[in-house]
C-alpha cells in the first residue's frame, strides 16, 4: 500500500485525519495501525 497525493486518511481509533500532500511508498500509521482511506460520499449525478 502507498500513500496517494490528494487522499485523506483516517485513524479508526482516535479519528485523526490527514490529507496527503505528497505521495510516497509508505503507509500512514496511527495508534499502531495503518490509516484507512476516507472515501468520498457517493452522490447522485448533479445534472
Amino acid at each position: 500500500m502507498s500513500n496517494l497525493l490528494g487522499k485523506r486518511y483516517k485513524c479508526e481509533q482516535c479519528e485523526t485525519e490527514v490529507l496527503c500532500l505528497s505521495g510516497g511508498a509508505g503507509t500512514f500509521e496511527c495508534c499502531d495501525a495503518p490509516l484507512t482511506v476516507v472515501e468520498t460520499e457517493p452522490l447522485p449525478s448533479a445534472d
Partner: protein
Amino acid sequence: MTSHGFACLEFEHRDAIALIGLREPATRNAISEAMRDELLEACAVVEAHPDMRAVVLYGAGDVFSSGANLREFGRATSVVEARRARGARNAYRRVLMLPLPTVAAMATVAVGGGLELALCCDVRVAAVGTRLGLPEVRRGFIPGGGGTQLVARRAGVRPADRLVLEGALIGAEEARRLGLVHEICPSPEAALARAVELANDLAEADPAAVAHVKRVLLAAS
C-alpha cells in the same frame, strides 16, 4: 513528480507551482463526475501545501476540454438531489476560490464546462487555433459551471449575452479581443510553457496578499 492515484488528472509539483492536467483522452478531456471529484482533491492539496504558490491547469494531449461529459447527464433522481450533488462537488467554484494564482493553458478546444473551468482561472493563455465557446443552449440547457457570470465578468455583459445566447464557437484571437484570453501562443506546447512561466512569476508574490486580493477581486464583481 509525486505519487498520486488520480485516474482523470495529471498532477505534478514543479518548483513552486502545481501543474494539473485534465486527462480523459477518449472524450477529449470531457469533465466527468470522477474528474470533478479528483479536481476537488487536487485543489485541497494545492491549498494546503506550503510549497505550492500557483497552479497551471491544462489539458493532456494538447486538448484542453470538450466540456462536461454529457453521457452522465440526466441521471439525478430529483431536482433536490441534483442541486445537493452539484453543491457538494462544485469543482468550478473550488478552482475559482483557490487563494493562489491560477493560469489556464488552452489548446484545440475549450468549450462548455471546459471553457467555464478556464474562466475560473485568473489568467488564460490559448494556442493559435483554439476554439472556445459556451454552446449549451444549442443542446437544450445552460452553462451551469458559472459561465454565464464569468463571461460577463471577464468580457463584459454585451459580449457575454451574445456568446451565451448564440452558443457559437469563437477563435482564440476573438476571445483575446473580448478579454477571455490574455495571450495567444503559437502552439499547445508554447501555451503550456507560457502558462508555467506566468505561474512561476505570479508565485513570487506574497501568498497572503494574493489570497486577500483574489477575495477582494471576486467580491468586486
